């Protein structure tokens, strides 16, 4: 963002850059920078809270009054506890012959479709794997956990992007099953730590590392600190 701020200012437009990482916005020094200590992915802070979002915008646009480069800090932080997890039901077993993760993903399809309607598909599957093909994509990662070399497992695209579609499928389904905006990361933690497919993705990540897959191929299957 800060690079664009420098470039745009040089082209004759005034900019205000929001930033969630203090050291980053300090080191890149945009002409007008507002550090908002909010979770990554939520630069306006609180989904579904127009009043709060307007407070952020007011603080941002106030920097336009400065006559020189300026850095400011928003007056309210939104800390991430690091352990808040969505309380979200999972479907019962339906097909005993299917892998639990595959069966689970099929069972979430109706919720996913509702979630897509609710969210206008903003964060859903479909980058490289359509919703219909999510169970098959999960099967490719199951094969890796069972010993198939990752490059021969049939992952239907770049692993990080396939993984992102699977995660988005689950988190979009979760959105339809709760009646509020999830706390930041709460639905990701639910996916990785509570679901059968989350277990598969974590295990596949370990297996790919052990198979000495190139680091970007396994590292970005999940958030980086996992």
């Amino acid at each position, binding site marked *: 963002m800060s*690079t*664009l701020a*420098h*470039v*745009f*200012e*040089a*082209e004759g*437009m*005034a*900019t*205000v850059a*929001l930033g*969630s*990482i203090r*050291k980053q916005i300090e*080191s*890149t020094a945009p*002409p007008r920078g507002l550090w908002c200590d909010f*979770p*990554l*992915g*939520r*630069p*306006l802070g*609180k*989904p579904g809270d*127009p009043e709060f*979002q307007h407070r952020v915008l007011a603080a941002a*646009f106030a920097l*336009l009054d400065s*006559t020189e*480069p300026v850095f400011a800090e928003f007056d309210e932080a939104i800390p*991430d506890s*690091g352990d808040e997890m969505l309380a979200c039901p999972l479907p019962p077993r339906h097909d005993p012959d299917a892998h639990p993760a595959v069966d689970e993903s099929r069972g979430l399809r109706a919720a996913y479709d509702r979630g897509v309607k609710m969210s*206008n*598909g*903003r*964060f*859903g599957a*479909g*980058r490289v794997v359509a919703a219909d093909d999510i169970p098959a994509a999960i099967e490719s990662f199951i094969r890796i956990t069972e010993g198939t070399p990752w490059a021969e497992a049939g992952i239907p695209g770049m692993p*990080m*992007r396939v993984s*992102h579609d699977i995660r*988005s499928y689950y988190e*979009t389904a979760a*959105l339809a099953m709760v009646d509020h*905006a*999830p706390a*930041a*990361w709460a639905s*990701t*933690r639910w996916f990785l*730590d509570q679901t059968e497919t989350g277990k598969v993705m974590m295990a596949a990540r370990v297996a790919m590392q052990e198979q000495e897959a190139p680091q970007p191929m396994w590292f*970005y299957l999940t*958030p*980086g*600190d*996992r």
Partner: protein
Amino acid sequence: MEETHLMADSDIKTMTEGLPAPDFETTAFTTPPPLSEATVAIVTSASLHHPDQDDFEVMDTGYRILDGSRRDYVTGHWSPNFDGAGFAYDMNTVFPLDRLDELAERGLIGRVADQHMAYAGNQFDLSTIQMDSGPAGAKWLREQGVDVVLLTPV
């Protein structure tokens, strides 16, 4: 279920805060017209695009034009290191177009631009954006009469 180490937003910020930053010898600075007379656009690094546009590839340094009269924005950001549920629940968490419309209705900003712009963040080499697609995007925005740009990350 055995509990493993859960992710924390602070851990991910710590991982990414040291990414190399481009060095600008001077800080360009433009004085805008009064906000109540300015045309305001949003430019986000959230890899937003319309479903009928090309998705962002990994390390895509280009930009997409976002039509402000539509609301079908999807994120193609490849990084797993951000929460997506906030944007899924409310687009204004990342792309506060409804909020800008409200500010314009109140007369606090002059006009909301008809079109906005998205790039892909989390780039390891910013030279192309600095030298090519950034200036090209800036030129396009200026041609739309944009005075002020709100930059939002993910």
